[in-house]
Each structure stands twice: as C-alpha cells, then as structure tokens.
C-alpha cells in the first residue's frame, strides 16, 4: 500500500499530461491570438520547452524526496510559503476560467455563484482524499482523454488555411516576447507535483517510458493545437472563447446529428476539476506545514478560494486582468526557481545520505576488521590468506 502522496510513475505521467494540456486549450488561444497574433504557436513552443526543462527538476525532486515529510524547517518553510502563494494565485485565475466556462456553456443564466457552491465540495472531497486518489483519478481519466482526442482527430472535418500562420516572425518578435511574459500563469503548471513522491511501477517498461512519452505527446499536442487553431480561425481567434469547445463541433458527426461536442465538454470539465484539485492540494498541504492540521488547511483554502471567486474575481475578465498584473512576475519567479532549488536540495540530501551510508558501511567494515584483529585465531588465518595472495 502506497502512502497518501506516494504514487507510481505512470500516475505521475497521467497527472503531468492532464496538467500540461487542460488550461492551455481553453482561453489561452484567445489571449495569445490577441497578444501575439499568428505567431502565438511560437510563444507556446518556447514556453512548453521551458516547461519541460522545469519538469525535469520537478521529477528529479519527486523521485528523491517527499516534500511533506521534510524536517529542515529553515529551508522548507520559505519554500512552502512561496508554493502556497503561487498555488493560491493560480487557483484564483484558473478557477475563474472553469466557473465561467460552466456558467456560459452549460447554463443559460450566468450565475456563477451557484457553480462555485457546487464545485467547492467536489474539490474539497478530492483534496481530502489525498494525493493517491487524485493520481488514480488522473490515471483513469487519461484513458477517456486519449479516447476523446483520438475520436476528434479521426472524425475532424474542418477547413484549415495553413497560410494563416505565415509569415513567421515578421515584425512580430516583440509581440512574441510580450506573449511570453504576460502569460506565465498558463505555463509551468508542475509545482503541485512536488507534493507527490514517485516510486517505480512494478512493470519495468511502464516505469521507464510512461513519463517521457506522456510529456512528449502532451508537448506536441499543445503546439499542434495552437497551429491548428491559427490555421482554422486566423485573425478571428481573438473572438473565440474556449477554443477546444468551439473546435470540437467541426467533425463528421455534427453534419448528421448537430452539435456533438458533449464528449469534449464533459471531459475538459473533469480535467479542469482534477488540475484545480491538485493546485488546492498543494495550497492546502503547504498551509498545513504551518498550521499542522491538514483538514483545517483544506477547509480554509476551499472557503477562501470560493469567497475570492464569488465576490472579488467574479468573472474571467477580472481573472485575466489579475493574471497579467504585477502578480505575473511573482508567479514566474516562484515557478521557475522553486523546482531548481528543490532539485538542488534533493541532490544534496541524496549525496549526503549516500555519504552517511558509505560512512556507516566503512564503520561497519572497520568494526569488523578491528574485531577480527582482536581474534588471534582468525587473525592468523587472515594473515595466512593475505600472504598466500601476495605470494
């Protein structure tokens, strides 16, 4: 039986895959179409490459230390505080997208407060059940996600004008840069994974390939999605909310039965819930480091997030304004430094543990040897063997 936050490589891979694609295929295409235009896919390519480098540090850490069990208060306390702040800010922004999506797409009247009330216990329950349950849910969901993506790809029927992505990077370099630094909030989503501790799958092949395959596929899919989105909508991308939902209607089934995006609508909603539960999990776990009560920390985070969403953020536009305010610099600083610092710490701890282990081994050997020298019979035998070897 694995500990509450100890998961297998394959589960870690599933969570990474879902984390990487969920919120990048919702409002981000519209935001980047406005900020960058036809070169938005280049912004995404750069950011995904950075994200993958960051992932190496996160995975390295999760393989070596269990953040929730670390005792070095002087080092861990500021890290926990930084993670708590980052997780809360990211939850506030991304939660506003999910609430708005549900309110506008699934209901006639956009009363988001009821949606917040409905999601709160669901998220709370998932976080209460802990990392194992979130990871297991992610693992189960991955099959559905892959099936939906495969179905949509096979049945796609959409006119794409690939010349919409041309010319590439002509008089647009500053916009690509602006697109990067204004949208840190939608990249580098792997911080919550630091709260998971990874062990190898029993299946050795799965243990080796699951993480690299999941990340490569997710990275390629995200960049491809932006290319297809630009080829499909061109300059009109600035008007398209929830890109995955709008594009899902372009398939052969739609011609026969009308709107057929129910598959992607529901799947995305569960993916979003899962990613938000991971963020709330990391916020709650980092808070519990200070208040020492996990359940209380979960309740505090859920209530705080719900109140902030309902009475302060209120809609997705305010969420975007908040995400692109000065807050983005804090987010970038934390999300790109914390994994590297923790990876360094994990390396230090591992090498220290090795040294201790080696020291212990040397000590044991020495003790053995000294006890041997005290035994004259053994000693004479040993000396005899040594002399034989030297002869």
């Amino acid at each position: 039986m694995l500990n509450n936050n100890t998961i297998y490589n394959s589960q870690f891979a599933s969570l990474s895959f879902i984390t990487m694609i969920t919120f990048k295929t919702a409002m981000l295409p519209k935001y980047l179409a406005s900020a960058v235009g036809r070169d938005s896919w280049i912004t995404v390519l750069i950011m995904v490459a950075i994200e993958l480098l960051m992932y190496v540090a996160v995975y390295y850490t999760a393989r070596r230390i269990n953040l929730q069990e670390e005792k070095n208060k002087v080092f861990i306390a500021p890290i926990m505080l930084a993670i708590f702040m980052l997780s809360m800010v990211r939850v506030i922004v991304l939660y506003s997208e999910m609430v708005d999506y549900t309110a506008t797409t699934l209901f006639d009247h956009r009363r988001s407060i009821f949606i917040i009330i409905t999601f709160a216990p669901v998220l709370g329950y998932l976080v209460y059940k802990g990392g194992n349950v979130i990871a297991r849910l992610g693992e189960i969901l991955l099959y559905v996600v892959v099936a939906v993506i495969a179905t949509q790809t096979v049945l796609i029927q959409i006119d794409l004008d690939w010349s919409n992505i041309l010319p590439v990077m002509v008089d647009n370099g500053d916009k690509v840069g602006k697109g990067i630094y204004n949208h840190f909030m939608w990249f580098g989503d792997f911080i919550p994974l630091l709260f998971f501790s990874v062990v190898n799958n029993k299946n050795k092949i799965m243990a080796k390939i699951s993480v690299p395959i999941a990340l490569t596929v997710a990275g390629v899919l995200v960049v491809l999605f932006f290319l297809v989105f630009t080829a499909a909508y061109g300059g009109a991308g600035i008007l398209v909310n929830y890109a995955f939902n709008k594009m899902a209607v372009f398939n052969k089934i739609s011609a026969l039965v009308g709107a057929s995006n129910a598959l992607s609508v529901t799947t995305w909603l569960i993916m979003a819930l899962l990613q938000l539960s991971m963020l709330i999990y990391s916020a709650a776990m980092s808070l519990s480091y200070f208040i020492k009560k996990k359940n209380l920390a979960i309740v505090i985070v859920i209530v705080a997030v719900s109140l902030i969403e309902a009475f302060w953020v209120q809609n997705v536009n305010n969420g975007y304004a908040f995400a692109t305010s000065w807050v983005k610099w804090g987010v970038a600083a934390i999300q790109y430094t914390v994994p590297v610092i923790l990876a360094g710490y994990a390396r230090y701890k591992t090498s220290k543990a090795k040294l201790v282990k080696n020291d212990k081994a040397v000590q044991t050997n020495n003790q053995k040897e000294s006890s041997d020298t005290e035994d004259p019979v053994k000693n004479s035998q040993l000396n005899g063997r040594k002399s034989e070897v030297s002869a």
Partner: protein
Amino acid sequence: MSILIKYKWLALVLAVVFMLVIDSMVYNVSISHRGIAIGLGIDIEEGEISLTAQVVLPKNGGVSSGGNNFINYNAKAKDMEKAIDIIGAESGLELSVAHTSIIVVGKSVIESARYDLFRYFISDDKINDNVLIAMAEDKAADVMKAKVPVGEVASLQLLNQLSPAKHPLGLIAVNLKDFTSRMFCGQGENYLPIVSIIPTTPSSDQSKDKVDKADAFKMDKTAIMDKEGLKGELDSKGSEGLSLITNNLQDGVIDIVGSDDRDISVHIVDSKSGVKYDYKNRKYKVNLALKTSRSEGRYEPDNTYSYLLDDQEIADLQKGIIDRVSSVISYSEEIGVDILGIKEGFYRYNPKQKYNIMTDDFLKTVKLEINFKIIQR
C-alpha cells in the same frame, strides 16, 4: 467530513438534496419552455436589427409534416441581445440558438457592413461555429417565410441544399468560422452564397392545405464584399470558378462549349485544388486535380460504349475551366476586390516584398497558370 465518510448513505442523501436545491436556484428552463431556433434571418431596417427566428415548437416534437410545428418570431432592436430578449418576452419561450444550423442575412446587412453581427455570433458560447451563412437576394425575412414544397421549412430546406453529401459545382457553402476568419484577412474580402426565391409547384402536402403557390431556393450566385460592404455579385459561371479554386466542389456537371460549337456536359466527380504564389514570375499557380467523365456516354468507333472524354474534349474542358477562373480574377479587378486573396497570399509567402505587393495595380501584373491533372473515371 469524517461523519460523511463513515455514513456513506448520508453523503448520498445530502448530494441529492444539494443537487435539487442548486438546480432549482440556477433557473434552468425546461425543454417545453424553450424556443429552439433552427434558423435565423437578420435584416437591417432603419438602422435597427430585424431578427426573424424560425423556431421549432418542442411540445409538438418538431415534426414538420403538416407544416404547423414551426413558427417564425420577429423582433426589432438596436442589438442582437435585445432582439433575442424581445422574442423571448413575446413568445414566452427561452430562445435557444444552440441548435441553430443556418443564418441568413439580408442584403441590407452586408450593404451596411454590419459585421459586428458576425463578431457577436462567433464570440457567443452557445452558437456553433459550423453554422452555415448565406445572403438573401433581398430580405432575409422573406427567405424565412418562403413556402418550400419539400415538406420542410425554409431553414431545413436551405440546410439540405447547402450541406448535401457533396457540394455541387457553383454552390459555395460558407460557415461562421470561415466567414469570420476571412473578415480579418487583407481588406476583409469575403463571399457568401446568394439565396434567391423562385416560384415552383406546390407539393402534395401543400395542395392538401390549399396552398396554391410554393417557393424554391436557387443559389448559383455569390455575393462579394469587403470591409466596406457589398461590392458585387459573381454570376453562376464565376461561382463555378470560385468553387473549383476554394475546394468547395465535390460533385457537379459543368457545361462547356466545344471547339466545334458543340455543347458538352462533363461530370466532375471530384476536384482538389492547391495554390502557389510565384513572386519572381508574378504567377498565381493553381494545381487542379479533377476526376471526370462525360455526362452522356457514346459509341466509340470499335462499337464500345464509353464515358471517356477524347483529347479535344479534355482541351475544351481545360479551356472552360480557365475561362471560369479568369472571370473571377477579371471581376476582382473590375470591382477592386481581391476575391481570391491573391495579394494576401503573395505577401504571406514573400513578406519582404510587402510594399511591392500591396499596391493597387499589383493584381494586374499577376498571370494565372492552371496546371491540370485529369483522371477519367
């Protein structure tokens, strides 16, 4: 929380109660109180939007036989939201556009360049971006009111004609996504199929209802517009050329005049086109792959019955197609609208030549070259 984990039945009961309470609070409208609009017609009258919504009445199940299960609601307002609201208030139904399959805009909409309406629809989260768009020859409301004989209402009839299994020659189906994305290219050059109402014989169903006049739709012309509004109409010959280049043709019969003045009907079973921009030689190159056969067979000298075109007929077919595509380009020059987006295409592939390409007379310097690949069925 631990109580709920211990007593799972309590959690289930609470969940059910919670769902019912939330559901009653979010004001969900039942299906019988929804007006499902299958088609919308939009006109501009005295600066205001005149919205005609063709609504299926859910209480009757939406079966069209008998012709009384659809109703046209109309409202005038300054903006679309208000017009939809007025229809809701007057009909007592919540107007739902999630199942709308076609939007017909009146000539007045394009003439007055009210493209904000398309921006409204594409930004809307409920309407699908694959909804088809057409322009009425005159008023959209007249199209919606048309008495079509094929046992359907106007919206469904238009839908059948615009989205058959294969697009016929000269019929250009345009959806909301494609129309809106072209609005953002170059000078907003765009096109829409024109819906004309023509008289026809009533169907047997209509005769039973003592209808003495019936309408049919003809869509062989194409409206041309840019960001300033309506610029002209491509005739049926030009529309055929446009449909060949824009890959809208998948099946159809093309009538050509042979070198010996004979009329030949060629069945184009399938076509695929690709475009290249050769800036150095100022050539607009179209690669056209066609699957063809004669519409009528004939006896060959060896007494076999064949649908194959002979070499002369193939040459005549090529000439007929070049004429059609050339007519689109010459009409573009005539009305000053780059219908095929040739300038934008040259710029995209040769961005360094932007200032040479984006001139008024660049289009005149470009030569058309069509490379044919004809496969006989």
